[in-house]
């Protein structure tokens, strides 16, 4: 296990290097003008001298390879650089926002895994039953629904029509304290929408896995020994039925990140999303590279976690052979 982790960590280094370099290359090739993005609406009334001075100060015209190297060497020294568009150090931008994004993703992910497992098991118990058909068709429908659409629909229903949940923000608009209760009530809608967007995958995988397991010999043997249906389902079928879900956890991380970006935007959630969009459209190299590194690291860690869990859960898999 330790060896696998160490090997993966070694492998992550070149991947991260390539990703950051790629981010710099793509940003340099993009049609966005960093000077205009920096100045915002002020640029549209600015004289050439101002635009040129900003271009000079922001170092826009330096080759991206040199900027990448500078960023990399200072980042390795612990300095993530300055974000021009946010007017503050990159570390501060991330520090202010990352926790809220992580909270949102973790809550959504946990909800999606739990709910998906429950629904999947319920559907798998009686394949072809009304419940199974309802769950499956719901899953396919949700899979096709775009996240931002679900989000707007949720705002319309829960915040406007029913007035049971706040429509956005981290706390009540009139309050300037961050309290646990307020954050919880404000978290329900965005995390719920994000969970719903991930739900179909887990539901369908669990349904398939448990359904297959129920037809396997050990389960039939258990049933023949007269064990209760519950023991059979939870003790035998679910254990092997959940194996595919473990693989899924790793592969859903990128999707979760993009989903979170959209959800945060709709709900004015003070996470990393707005910063990411802004960093991309304003070609803010240091911030963009740091965020891309974070996202890549999250994906790699997700994959590693999935493999480790798999190794623990499935005796047929030998970690040191991975």
């Amino acid at each position: 296990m330790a060896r696998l982790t160490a090997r993966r960590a070694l492998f992550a280094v070149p991947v991260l290097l390539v990703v950051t370099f790629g981010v710099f290359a793509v940003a340099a090739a993009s049609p966005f003008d960093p000077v205009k993005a920096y100045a915002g609406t002020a640029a549209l009334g600015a004289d050439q001298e101002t635009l040129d001075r900003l271009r000079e100060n922001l170092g826009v015209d330096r080759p991206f390879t040199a900027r990448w190297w500078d960023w990399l060497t200072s980042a390795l020294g612990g300095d993530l650089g300055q974000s021009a568009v946010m007017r503050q150090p990159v570390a501060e931008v991330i520090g202010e926002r990352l926790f809220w994004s992580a909270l949102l993703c973790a809550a959504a992910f946990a909800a999606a895994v739990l709910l998906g497992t429950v629904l999947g098991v319920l559907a798998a118990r009686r394949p072809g039953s009304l419940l199974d058909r309802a769950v499956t068709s719901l899953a396919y429908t949700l899979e096709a629904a775009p996240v931002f659409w679900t989000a707007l629909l949720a705002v319309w229903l829960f915040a406007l029509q029913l007035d049971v949940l706040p429509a956005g923000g981290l706390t009540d608009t009139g309050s300037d304290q961050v309290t646990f209760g307020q954050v919880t009530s404000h978290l329900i809608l965005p995390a719920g929408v994000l969970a719903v967007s991930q739900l179909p995958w887990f539901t369908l995988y669990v349904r398939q896995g448990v359904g297959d397991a129920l037809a396997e010999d050990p389960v039939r043997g258990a049933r023949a020994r007269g064990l209760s249906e519950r023991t059979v389902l939870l003790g035998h079928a679910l254990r092997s039925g959940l194996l595919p879900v473990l693989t899924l956890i790793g592969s859903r991380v990128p999707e979760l990140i993009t989903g979170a970006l959209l959800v945060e935007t709709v709900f004015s959630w003070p996470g990393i999303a707005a910063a990411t969009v802004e960093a991309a459209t304003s070609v803010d190299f240091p911030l963009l590279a740091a965020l891309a590194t974070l996202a890549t690291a999250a994906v790699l860690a997700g994959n590693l976690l999935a493999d480790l869990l798999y190794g623990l859960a499935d005796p047929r898999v030998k970690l040191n052979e991975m």
Partner: protein
Amino acid sequence: MTTRRIRGAAAAVAMAGAVAACSAPGSGGADGAASADSVVIGVPTEPDTLSPLLGYGKDGNSKIFDGLLARDAGMELKPALAKALPEITDGGRTYTYTLRDGVRFSDGEPLTADDVVFTYRTVLDDKTNNTAKSELAAVEEVRADGDDKVVFTLAHPYAAFAARTVLPVVPEHVAGGQDPNTGSFNTRPVGTGPYVLTGWSKGEKLTFKANPDYWGGEPKVKKLTMAIIADDDVRATRLRSGDLDGATLPPNLAATFKGDDDKKTYRATSYDFRAVTLPTGNPVAGDTAIRRALDLAVDRRAMVDKILDGAGRPAYGPLPVDDPWFAKDVERPRDLTEAGRILDEAGWKSGKDGIRAKDGRPARFTLYYPSGDKVRQDHALAYASDAKKAGIDVRVESATWEVIEPRMNHDAVLAGFGSTGDPDFGLYTLLHSSLAGDGFNNMARYDNPAVDEALDTGRRSQDTQAREAAYDDIQRELVKNPGYTFLTHIDHMYVLADRWKDLTTQTEPHEHGFASGPWWNVEDWRPRT
């Protein structure tokens, strides 16, 4: 929803890198908003920075800061951190300000002339990424004379200079030791103003509390929240649900609050115009006959009624009709017949397809508008259809600014600008030939020696009558040779809970949100009861 009593308390300064925003112990819950001592306002955008060194609050009303001068409801300059209006000597080249006694920053440190000097010098420093530095281009030197006098020396006599000194003053002891471009002052500012920032949750909201030691007296509105809600519909909805007390809204959404007894709608007139740039270098758009015909062919009234839902005024030039500097005699009705006559006389003859041509060149040019801006799109399409009636073919295209910018010297653009404060601010950069094509200045490459001369007179003369005459001349010249077709001045609409007495709005610039609307002077609000 819980109602908690408001307890005044000191602001806690958020620790750098702390994840949770610290906050002032105070009220919470939306019911607290029903009292007149707190207000929650919804605005579409948040500032990039709260540091005046990078341009925040440069036109005044910044809440956290004060300038040497400020503006009243009638846009007249009045003393703020200065005791009185500046003393102007040396033929209009030296401006001397004497500071008010006993003013302190919200951290308790006294304000001195050195703070003022530091502020202006940092803004003027090439290394500071301030986008509005050119507005202070006339300043040759700024120095302190003792603890309470600041002396500006200008490169040339500049009548409008005093209006620039609404720029907020920052404390050197806080902002001095850090990089103005990325330092913590951008997010945790300290000023002398009526409010103190208590929290800024980026993308969500900014919260302020009244500064009890404000030199102008402690504000009655103790708590101010600016919620950042980009979507117009969501903003209107949250206003309706009582989550917000007030909001900036487009006219069609503001109209939906008409029947609401406990909310008032405020309409602020503005300098914010929409105009078509007619590039001098384009053989069609640069032709004086074509320009005059277009100017006569457009139906400005219809644009105001149909595009702006009546929330605006026809623009007969860069200055709005209610501006004291506006030359009344330039208002002109739509006259298609006259437009046709001018074109015929100049040799632009109608062809088979109804499009005029001269020497084999069809009367045709392209008009760009920035994509995604619906108001500009509507203006552009209305303009093209009016032009067609005069036999001129305007092809409307949308693009991003990155695409439009290199084409501004040849193709028309649906532009929007407008500066408050002094006619020099908006007109000089818009019309002076020396600034033709200088970044986004004088986008039409307008070149008219009579206008240049009048602009220089208006800029340098200290005599109000001479200045008025100069600006009248400019407006009349623009009728004879309209290098821009001015279409409308847009009103800004605000809806606000009716809990305060006698609120006003100022005439607003192109940009609006934080410093405009009825909350431009929230520190002066008085409860109704």
